[in-house]
């Protein structure tokens, strides 16, 4: 059975690459999305038979989430006017980034819970052998860090994917709000570029803290900081530059998905994610070039320069 699942992932990865290849040419573009769609269905159906999925509750939750999320996206995507497509791409991309961030949150919460259990067990043993009260024993034991527990490589990619996915999520929401005419501001605070730098540094430091910590609440702060980075970086960018930014956020989500593939040990996620990451980076470059603007100009020209436009 596992072999069938692995082969399904292989077929899905192949169909994604061939589908993207076909989508790069006007004559075959429509076939391309259908191939990619078939790949997605194969991979999703195969995952239902994954041995890692345990418990009836979890199966019910999975079906329920797919039904609600899928139905909502289907209705909104069918209803939207042709001219409003770019912001819909932005919001669906944001959903993917958010999903990658949440997968990281689940992995980190799981590692933290397991560390807590280890600490409790060790403390109980110490308390019994030294005749100490439980809270004193808890202070004596050190169960180690999340980084050591998950494995250094897995922990680093989990944290990187968490940052990138969360930034793609909040950035995409801002991009959507701007294109949809719901947000006119180009500035949230004075000294925007300093706030951006401070938030970026805070996110990195919190990520390092999570890596070396065993407790839960740095994880929460870490996600909040990454979320704010996405908002603050995207806000100064004007509406005309948004398609380029959406393409960049799309590439970032791809990278985050690829990193999650490593954390979860799923090659289909790695291949699809990294292919989209690389293709998206190139596409971002091509789109910026078509507008005759370098990408750095698009991203940083708004920094601290423009007053409130609305």
């Amino acid at each position: 059975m596992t072999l069938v699942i692995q082969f399904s992932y292989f077929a899905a990865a192949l169909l994604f690459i061939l589908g993207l290849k076909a989508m790069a040419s006007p004559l075959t573009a429509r076939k391309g999305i259908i191939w990619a769609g078939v790949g997605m269905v194969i991979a999703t159906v195969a995952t239902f038979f994954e041995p890692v999925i345990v418990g009836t509750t979890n199966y019910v939750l999975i079906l329920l989430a797919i039904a609600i999320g899928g139905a909502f996206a289907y209705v909104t995507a069918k209803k939207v006017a042709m001219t409003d497509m770019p912001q819909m791409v932005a919001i669906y991309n944001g959903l993917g980034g958010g999903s990658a961030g949440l997968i990281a949150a689940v992995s980190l919460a799981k590692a933290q819970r397991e560390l807590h259990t280890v600490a409790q067990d060790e403390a109980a043993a110490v308390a019994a052998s030294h005749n100490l009260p439980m809270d004193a024993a808890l202070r004596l034991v050190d169960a180690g860090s999340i980084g050591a527990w998950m494995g250094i490589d897995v922990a680093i990619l989990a944290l990187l994917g968490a940052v990138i996915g969360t930034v793609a999520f909040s950035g995409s929401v801002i991009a959507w709000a701007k294109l949809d005419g719901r947000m006119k501001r180009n500035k949230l605070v004075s000294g925007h570029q300093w706030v951006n730098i401070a938030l970026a540094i805070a996110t990195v430091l919190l990520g390092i803290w999570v890596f070396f910590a065993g407790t839960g609440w740095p994880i929460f702060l870490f996600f909040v900081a990454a979320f704010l980075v996405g908002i603050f970086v995207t806000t100064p960018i004007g509406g005309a530059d948004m398609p380029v930014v959406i393409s960049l956020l799309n590439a970032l989500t791809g990278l985050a998905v690829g990193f999650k593939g490593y954390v979860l040990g799923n090659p289909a996620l790695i291949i699809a994610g990294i292919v989209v990451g690389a293709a998206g980076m190139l596409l971002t470059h091509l789109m910026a070039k078509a507008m005759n603007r370098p990408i750095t100009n698009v991203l940083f020209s708004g920094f601290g320069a423009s007053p409130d436009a609305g």
Partner: protein
Amino acid sequence: MIEGMTGVIAIYVFMLSAVAGYEVISRVPVILHTPLMSGSNFVHGIVVVGAMAALGMAQTPLEQALGFLAVLLGAGNAVGGYVVTERMLEMFKTSDKDKKQGAK
């Protein structure tokens, strides 16, 4: 990490996937920029598969809540991405060159 795929092999997969992604779209015409962006947006909807695995492994209510949201958003990415891309590429069927809304 899954059995049979060590860290080194994963690095090869990363590298080859990046090359494939770059090569696959290196000669795309301007008119297809936006549909292709939308199409690649659909492809990373595969994140729903990872979210399903994460929710499947969840053991506490917190993990289940986070996992549930992950699957919800991932499914939205996949389904929304597909429908939007389909609708954009629909315009390439009836007439090729005179409808250029797909490029912007």
